[in-house]
């Protein structure tokens, strides 16, 4: 029983991590777009669980609210509107891309290995940094607020403007020209 209590956090980590990875694999493995989207949803929820484990509860809630509750719903909306059923099994012309994929995979694996090596040999990561505001442990919500609206205010505003421009661009591109095809 005590073993269980001591290793509980690790157990949760492995469950969440396998949820993230299995979900990510499912996204590319499922043939039906709806199943792929659901798989991505599982992956997002797993990431939220990992955030909770890091005591970054604000990030976890926002992860679920924005990605699972907003972005994925719009994905599903589009998938359902274009009526994409399962992709038929046919030869896909990706053979030329195989060497590039292998190369990229090796590079990513090396990076991952290096990162894991650094985390094993180096000092343990400071999880409390996600809750620190100006040296005091206040909480994750406060920490995120301070970084966004005080420490990194200018980059944050620039990013918002870029997003606004992208949004206006999407509206302009997606709009029918008035008078061409009846009522827009």
């Amino acid at each position, binding site marked *: 029983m005590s073993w269980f209590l001591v290793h509980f956090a690790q157990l949760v980590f492995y469950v969440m991590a396998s949820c993230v990875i299995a979900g990510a694999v499912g996204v590319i493995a499922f043939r039906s777009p709806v199943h792929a989207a659901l798989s991505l949803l599982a992956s997002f929820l797993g990431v939220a669980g990992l955030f909770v484990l890091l005591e970054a509860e604000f990030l976890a809630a926002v992860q679920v*609210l924005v990605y699972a509750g907003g972005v994925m719903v719009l994905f599903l909306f589009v998938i359902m509107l274009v009526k994409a059923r399962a992709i038929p099994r046919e030869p896909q012309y990706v053979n030329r891309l195989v060497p590039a994929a292998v190369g990229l995979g090796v590079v990513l694996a090396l990076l991952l290995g290096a990162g894991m090596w650094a985390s094993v040999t180096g000092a343990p990561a400071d999880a409390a940094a996600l809750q620190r505001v100006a040296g005091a442990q206040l909480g994750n919500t406060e920490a995120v607020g301070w970084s966004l609206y005080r420490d990194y205010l200018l980059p944050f505003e620039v990013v918002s403007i870029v997003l606004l421009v992208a949004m206006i661009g999407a509206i302009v591109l997606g709009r029918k020209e008035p008078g061409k095809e009846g009522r827009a």
Partner: protein
Amino acid sequence: MPAPLMTYLVIPLVKIVVILAVVILLAAYMSYFERKVLAYMQIRIGPNRVGPRGWLQPIADALKLLVKEDIVPSRAEKLVYFLGPVLVVVPALLVFSVIPFGPAFKVAGHVVTPYLTDVNIGILFILAVSSIGVYGVILGGWASNNKYSMMGGLRSAAQLVSYEVPMGLSVVTVLLMANSLSLVKIVEAQQRSGVWYVFPGFIAFFIYFVCGVAETNRNPFDLPEAESELVAGFHTEYSGMKFAFYFLAEYANMVVISSIATVLFLGGWLPPFPNALAALWASPALAWIPPVAWFVLKMAAFLFVYIWFRGTFPRYRFDQLMALGWKVFIPVSLVNLMAVGLGVLLIGGPR
């Protein structure tokens, strides 16, 4: 029994069982209450055959749905069709884990909290978890392989995503005034300032409740199910226990919206008018009423308003619904948010 096992396993399990039982019974009896109140509004009598005055009607309905044949359309997506009701019920019930029904009190030296947990992102947790509920509706509508269900699912997705935005913005005004995301702390802040947030934030309160009605797919925003045009929309094909799950989730969500409105705007478990004037005469006279009773009373008032809406308002048209959400509620709640923010900055919030 070791102490951590007691605090982290046994007590929460007992609380979970109690909360689930109460919520599910409440949802079931809400349907009885609704039929009865609607009946009186329309000068009828309503259910009165099962048990005295029809009190056992919800139990009979639940048993009927439980033993009914479960029909799956032959060309439905089996797995997603099964997942739909699950994804809509689980978030609706999960939300109750953070709703504070009353203040902590002492029984024989032990502090008892009449809520499962008080996480410090309480209200964000609720918004996040309930945003998962959309999936149950749109996936159920899609997997049924039925045009009406599909239309209902699409309408619901558009409606829920649109009305989440003004709802979130009106919740933020409360956060500005209370300075916390924890539901318990929000109620305590209202106790300290001596005023319920419905008074300084009445615009936010109005927007929150109207959006809440839209989020639960209730009249006058019940476009996703609109019987007369969509034959009950996303759950047309569902039968038996799966249909009961959608039904349960709808009523549980109404209880959720009412509970959050109570906590955010009506002071949760606080007795009415916690200001100095009322303390002179009202508070001693009302002190014997337990806090949980106030919570239930306020929540029941909201639930009654839901039924009142259903008996009163005609249904919106879909373009009107979207126009109302995007062109009225979002701008108004944004301006309101700025005004409240300015007020909090200048006079330091309500006191």
